[in-house]
């Protein structure tokens, strides 16, 4: 079966022009998402994962700017569209879920009002039909007694319920792509499991594509089909989930996997990645991970281009595989 490519990003660059200098938050990333596929973007703070997500919908504000690149949604470059055309895409064909449900909901409007707004604006629903549909949507995201909840304000709901409402709003327009930026970071683990499970079910049901952004590699590994690891504005490894987790090629990916405390394994000390993230204003030339890398040497790749490690698995470096400690790794 030929997979339908729904999003194609080419050499996207987003820079922030601050007083201290230029921060190259996203420094030429390329990736694609197929229909019904879940892409997970992983990285630590400052890796550029959220800025990548925001750039796709052109939500970058001063002093930031999308410098170059293409974001092709079903063949059309979003970066070349007028603001008016973009409004028809944003929150409609491509919608977004943010980290903190308290700040992404309007505290002075009822839940129902916030859902019906989308339906009326994007889908030409009448007010009455929109309300009926909103109740259906609330029920779909697992909110009990939706007829009552629809008239509640966000402050009357728990954190998990608020995030369910946010998902209902994001799915109200039957989007083709859902971008979720750390959707469960503010939630407790049992609630996180509920929300991730709910999103996965709905995505599968409607054959929607999803880009999920998180710092938690374990969480991403449970839900994504493809994983993209970012470090200081670059994609350093990208590809099929199974391969990336079982045979990480880049030393940073391997370091991330090894520094996770694993429940099933007894270990005296955790493996740690030495040092700190480089300052975004003063990035090293070439591989940005080099100063922290155990395998760094004269034979390091010069550029930051991804090359094929194996089928559907790309990385900017494959030294981790040569020095593989695979047997020690506890991958379940």
């Amino acid at each position: 079966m030929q997979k339908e490519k729904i999003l194609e990003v080419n050499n996207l660059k987003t820079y922030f022009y601050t007083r201290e200098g230029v921060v190259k938050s996203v420094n030429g990333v390329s990736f694609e998402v197929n229909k019904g596929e879940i892409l997970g973007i992983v990285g630590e703070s400052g890796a550029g994962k959220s800025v990548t997500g925001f750039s796709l919908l052109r939500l970058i504000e001063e002093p930031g700017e999308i410098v170059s690149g293409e974001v092709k949604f079903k063949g059309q470059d979003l970066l070349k569209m007028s603001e008016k055309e973009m409004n028809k895409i944003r929150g409609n064909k491509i919608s977004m879920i943010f980290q903190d449900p308290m700040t992404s909901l309007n505290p002075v409007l009822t839940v129902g009002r916030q859902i019906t707004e989308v339906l009326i604006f994007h889908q030409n629903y009448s007010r009455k039909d929109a309300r009926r549909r909103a109740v259906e949507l609330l029920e779909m995201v697992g909110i009990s007694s939706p007829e009552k909840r629809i008239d509640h304000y966000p402050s009357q709901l728990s954190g998990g319920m608020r995030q369910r409402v946010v998902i209902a709003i994001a799915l109200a327009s039957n989007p083709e792509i859902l971008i979720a930026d750390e959707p469960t970071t503010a939630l407790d683990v049992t609630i996180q499991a509920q929300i991730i499970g709910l999103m996965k079910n709905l995505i599968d049901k409607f054959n929607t594509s999803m880009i999920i952004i998180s710092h938690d590699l374990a969480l991403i590994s449970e839900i994504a089909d493809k994983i993209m690891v970012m470090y200081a504005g670059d994609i350093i490894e990208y590809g099929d989930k199974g391969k990336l987790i079982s045979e990480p090629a880049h030393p940073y990916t391997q370091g991330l996997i090894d520094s996770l405390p694993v429940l099933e394994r007894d270990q005296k000390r955790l493996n740690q990645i030495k040092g700190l993230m480089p300052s975004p204003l003063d990035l090293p030339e070439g591989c940005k991970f080099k100063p922290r890398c155990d395998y760094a040497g004269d034979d390091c790749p010069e550029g930051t281009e991804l090359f094929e490690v194996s089928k559907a698995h790309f990385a900017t470096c494959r030294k981790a595989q040569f020095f593989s400690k695979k047997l020690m790794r506890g991958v379940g």
Partner: protein
Amino acid sequence: MSLLKVDNLKKYFAVSSGFLARLRKKESYVHAVNGVSFDIKKGETLSLVGESGCGKSTIGRTVLGLYEPTAGDIYYDGRRVNDMSEKEKFKLKEKMQMIFQDPYSSLNPRQKVKEIISEPIRTHNIVSNEEMDDYILKLLDKVGIDESYLNRYPHQFSGGQRQRIGIARSLAVEPEFIVADEPISALDVSIQAQILNLMMDLQEEFHLTYLFIAHDLSVVKHISDRVAIMYLGKVFEIGDKKEIFDHPVHPYTEALFVSIPKLTEKTKENFVSLEGDVPDPIYLPSGCYFHSRCKYASNICREVEPELKEIDGRQVACHLYD
């Protein structure tokens, strides 16, 4: 003998209520801690684990005397803290220290590293002014901060480095007992491992006793000797780390374990382990606090509160094992 003993600790917070409610003398309370007992031996690490609102941080702060307990007793080294004189309580503050969650808000932004660390040393007269600089440098060396950073301000450091400074400040008064409240949850993954390793090294070197508060079970497994699983201000299961992690007994512990994301090559099939939300701590449920979410709940669970009982080498509060 245990270094710290907590006996049937309760802590309620009054919720500001309206004029009429006050007139009728009907105040409502958030029941943060509802009768918790445990002890910690010298050199041991006990972790309190649970989701937000389970009372784990409140216990940590009450133990340190930052909150006055509503009921119950705290014993340090065999002595009831309430029986101590003011002078003894001041002395106790030297022995008990805290490491905070947020390295951004726990350091004074207008003080240099040197001032931040020297303040508790002066307050408790640990070393003379002449020895001060040497002493601070030794501390910084222990936590892995370069001595050239002595005159820098907190904003010049990363989160992990700030947490190291916070740890140096806690160690400055040569404490025996440290409450660490989510010390790594604000840090990036690659830095978390560094701080955890540091805490374990320091524990060995200075024979520290830790009360470790966290929501992340895999971190807890790494650092603890014993673990207490909490829910709505109650301990549901407490015992040896190995026993609990190898074979969780309480249905809530089991659900928590299933919910933690685990690194995998295959997509997870079934995410949801627990339906619903934690009940409101103002209006506590009857019987077992967990019954509304528990798939094994029966009539007795709705009516009678279970007591902690010895089962399979640990203490569990659940009617399933009556």
